[in-house]
């Protein structure tokens, strides 16, 4: 497999050595290093028996494509395709049709229900379930929930995962994976926007 870059955020935000953006990131060395350590913890894990690396990359390609068809989505799409081309094709095709504006969703809190909003509640189509298997299909549905309507993520959503064969440890890894990508993709977008503003 193509090696991951030494600093994924630098790669995706096009931070070149000695640039203003490089200097900016190096003013927060712990954030810079530990953001990369977070990536490594998820994509070069000590063990991947609970959640395979191929599944992690497929979920990442789906999650980041839902958020935007940008450099981050292209990065995970490329790695997923290299690792598991057939399932990646099915997942990426589904992601393009599943992208939806967020955050939306119903509030559980009684005083906030007037703020509840609606949107696309996505379910994996039968052909996708057949192509990737029930276990991964359940994870993709959960990923869609976390990406676009996190306030609707509830105990029933976790029960759907455990019913599909996800252990408690695996659910924690899946949750961290999707949540981390929500961070990483936004840092990349933020840094790119800062650079665009400086260049304008």
């Amino acid at each position, binding site marked *: 497999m193509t090696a991951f870059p030494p600093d994924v955020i630098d790669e995706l935000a096009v931070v070149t050595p000695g640039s203003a953006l490089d200097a*900016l990131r190096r*003013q*927060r060395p*712990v*954030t810079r290093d*530990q953001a990369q*350590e*977070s990536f490594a*913890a998820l994509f070069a894990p000590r063990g991947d028996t609970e959640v395979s690396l191929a599944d992690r990359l497929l979920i990442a390609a789906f999650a980041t494509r*839902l*958020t935007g068809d940008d450099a981050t989505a292209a990065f995970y799409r490329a790695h997923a395709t290299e690792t598991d081309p057939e399932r990646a094709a099915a997942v990426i095709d589904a992601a393009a049709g599943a*992208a*939806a*504006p*967020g*955050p939306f*969703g119903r509030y*559980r*809190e*009684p*005083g*906030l229900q007037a*703020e509840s909003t609606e949107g696309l509640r996505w379910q994996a189509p039968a052909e996708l379930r057949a192509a990737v298997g029930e276990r991964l299909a359940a994870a993709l549905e959960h990923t869609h929930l*976390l990406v*676009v309507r*996190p*306030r609707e*993520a*509830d*105990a*029933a*959503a*976790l*029960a759907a995962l*455990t019913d599909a064969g996800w252990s*408690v*440890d695996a*659910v*924690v*890894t899946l*949750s*961290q994976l*999707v*949540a*981390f990508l*929500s*961070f*990483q*993709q*936004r*840092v990349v*977008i*933020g*840094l790119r*926007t*800062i650079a*665009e*503003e*400086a260049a*304008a």
Partner: protein
Amino acid sequence: MTIDTPTATVPERFTRDHVGWTPHLEPKPIADLDERDHAGLVDRGRASSDYFRLLVRDPEILGARTRVDKDIFYNTDGGLPRAERELAATAASRLNGCVFCASVHSRFAAHHSGNPDDVQRLLDEGVDADLGERWNAIVAAAVALTRTPSALTVDHVQRLREAGLDDLAIADVVHGAAFFNWANRLMLSLGDPVAPA
């Protein structure tokens, strides 16, 4: 396999009061924590938290996540004042709908700014509340970055600069908001907020 929370204990709305949190899945028992887990918890005191003992089921990502968190919010070596990092965190949490995260970080924002009224207005009225131009610019950028797809533009960055933020402060807004898109998704999905006693 999952633990349900009685609906009667759900908070009424966003609040600066002490909201609790209860997990849907079983945290790792304290007696089972080993050295690898303690490294992931970073602070030994975090072993008393259900949230961190659930996340410690994957200790490496918890450890890195915790160090990112602490640096973004507690590293006061230049950049954005603490209060406004907490404001960015509150704004992201308000938009995503994380009542627990918003309660913690709105308390911090109120404490560090000495301006509880504007913080409360953000909780009560939502992300379009008028908090004065500097805070409006920070909230607008944090909210734009939190939306899917991202709505952050050069204009948001320009507005922050005009409000007096330098590059590092602007990057701190980005990181504060981005981090809460991580934290909110864990808090919202792995458990439920519990109303103040």
